[in-house]
Structures are given as structure tokens and as C-alpha cells.
């Protein structure tokens, strides 16, 4: 029975591993931490798996566990990008002001998103994954109105970073 459960879990996770990788990409800065966080999320998913009754889709259920692990349970061994990086982004934006190719813009946006706080990052992540505000608010435990307000603030924040 246990073997069966194990097999089912690993197969499902393997099929949906992209979700976990994407969370790891947003929340870590190097390969080692990426793998570290991936492993922690996998452990938490497996520990919670017996309680997964299939009311939701496996992938929907994964978002919650993966984000909770990243924002709440996981202890980073390395410091997050510090202010120095932030300065360099600003600097770079000014230098590239007249060369706004799509590629450049994307690069800056990714960098800006990575500098957001853990909770803001979770919001952006769910937004990028095309989750609606109901799902976002349920995952984070805030009201839908608050989720919208917060998302608007993040948009403003990103805008100031991109257009100083």
C-alpha cells in the first residue's frame, strides 16, 4: 500500500515538477539553494500527501504547499539579494533608458520581481500562473479585496523600479 502511494506521489510530482521549479527560481538565487528548496518542498508535499484526498487537482494543491514552504517554513542559508544589487538595477535602467528592447525590459522585470518581499513574490507568482484573485486570496489567507489592493501596490512598485 505504502509502495503504491509512493509510486503514485512520485509520478504525479514528476509530471508537475515545473510548479516547484518555478517557485524555486523565484525564491532562490543560485543552483544550490534552488535544489535545497526543491527538496524541502518535496519533503513537505510527501508529508502532506496522505491528507490529499483529490478534492482539488494535484497541481492546485501543490501551489499551496510549495508557496507555504518557500515563504514560511524554509530557512535560507544564504542572504537574499542585498541593496547593492538593487542599486545596480537602478543604475542599469538609467543606462539602458534609450534602448528599450523587449528583451531588456524582461530582464529588468525579472530582476525587480526577485527583489520583492516573500509575500509580494507569492502574489506575483500566482498572478503569472494565471490564478484568479479568489485562489490567490485563499492561498495566502487574505481577503480578495486585499489581494487586489496588494497587487496594485506591487504594480506601482514595479513601475517605479522600471521608470525611475
Amino acid at each position, binding site marked *: 500500500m505504502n509502495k503504491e502511494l*509512493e509510486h503514485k*506521489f*512520485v*509520478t504525479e*510530482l*514528476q509530471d508537475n*515538477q*515545473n510548479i516547484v*521549479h*518555478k517557485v524555486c*527560481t523565484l525564491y532562490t538565487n543560485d543552483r544550490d539553494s534552488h535544489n535545497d528548496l*526543491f*527538496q*524541502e518542498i*518535496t*519533503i*513537505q508535499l*510527501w*508529508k*502532506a500527501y496522505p*491528507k490529499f484526498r483529490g478534492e482539488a487537482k494535484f497541481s492546485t*494543491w501543490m501551489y*499551496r*504547499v510549495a*508557496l*507555504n*514552504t518557500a*515563504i*514560511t*517554513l*524554509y*530557512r*535560507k542559508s544564504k542572504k537574499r539579494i542585498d541593496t547593492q544589487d538593487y542599486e545596480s538595477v537602478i543604475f542599469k535602467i538609467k543606462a539602458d533608458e534609450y534602448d528599450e528592447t*523587449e528583451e531588456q*525590459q*524582461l530582464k529588468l*522585470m*525579472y530582476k525587480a*520581481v526577485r527583489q520583492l*518581499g*516573500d*509575500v*509580494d513574490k*507569492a502574489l506575483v507568482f500566482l*498572478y*503569472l500562473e*494565471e490564478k484568479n484573485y479568489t485562489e490567490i486570496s*485563499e*492561498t*495566502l*489567507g*487574505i481577503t480578495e479585496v*486585499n489581494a487586489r*489592493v*496588494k497587487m496594485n501596490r506591487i*504594480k*506601482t512598485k*514595479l*513601475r517605479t523600479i*522600471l521608470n525611475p
Partner: protein
Amino acid sequence: MTDELELLKRDWQKKEAELPKLSYEDIHKMIWKKSSSIVKWILIISILEFTIPQLLLFVPALEETMQIYENIGVSNYLFALSLIIYAVVLFFIFQFYRRYTEISVLDNSKNLMKKILRTRKTVKHYVLFSLSMILVTIIIMLVGVYLNEDITHIVPELGDKLEKVSPDKLRMTLMLTLGIFGLVFTVFMGGIYFLLYGLLLRKLNKNYAELKQLEI
């Protein structure tokens, strides 16, 4: 801006192709690895906090200390106190266990953080309780020394040398030593505790504050 975020969204979805691909074996190996989550660390630290003070009672050198309690004439009071302490410690362990089982990764993020912080609070109360019990013990001993008539008799090993010192001076010295030792020890333990949890939960506290702030 919305357009820019849409641009990001499109690219984000395109990027999926570049993500690493782990094999069945890779993932299978991971599920039996040890977790290093904050919750686990809180559990480990708390268990240590519950057990270390108890283990200290078994250190042989402390038998001599017991003798001192008797010499001071406070051993009965301290015995009564320790009974109370054990009852309260049991209550705390039960509370802590209950809090710990409440924590579930399936909760929403805010609730999960709230529960972890609540568990931490239970442990914090326990530590404050232990620290104040150290102080109470010291105070009982101070009172004991103060009321004791035959002061040289408390530390018999030093008896001969002490006969030349006036009893009042000796009493003061003994009380001062005890008092300072008690305070330093309490502050030291308190410092270790705050350092430990302060560092462990800094991130969590920050994220929780961020979510909480939205409620206003």
C-alpha cells in the same frame, strides 16, 4: 504597466521549457530526506529547552548543592517549589504538543505563520517561566541565608578559614555572590534564547507582519 506584466506573463510561460527536469529516481530519493523546516527547528530547540534543565539535576556536582540547600534550611521549600515546577512543565509540554500538531502546511499562509508564531509563544512563556523559577530559587536561598543563625555551617569545607571572618560580613558576601550568580545566569540563559529564536524567526515575523498589515 499592465502590458508589461502581460509581457512578463507570456515570457514566464515560455520559460517553462528551460526549467530543469528531474527523473523519477531523483524525486524518489528526495522524499526520504530529512526536512530542515523552521517548524522542525522549533521542535528540536523546544525539546532541548524542556530537557536540559531536567538533565542538569543529574550532574553529580549538584549533589553538593543539595547539601547546601539543607544546610541553609530551605530544602523543604525548594522541594515544594520543584513539585509545582514539574506540574507546570508537564502542562507546558502538553500545550506545546497541541500547538505543534496544529501546524499544517495545507493551511493558508497567514494561518500557518500565525500557528508557528503561537507555538513559539508557548515556548517563550515556558522559558520565561523557567527563568523566573531560577530567580525564585535564588531568592529562597537568599532568605534562607539571611535567616540562618549559624552561617559558617553552610559551607563546612571552608569552616576553619571562615571562623576568623565576622558572621555578618560572611553573610553579606554569601548573599551577594548568590545574587550576582543568579542574575548573571538568568540573563545569560535569556540571551541565548532570544538570540536563537530571534534569528530563526526573523523572516517569518517579517512576512507575517506584511500579511497582517493588510487587515487594517
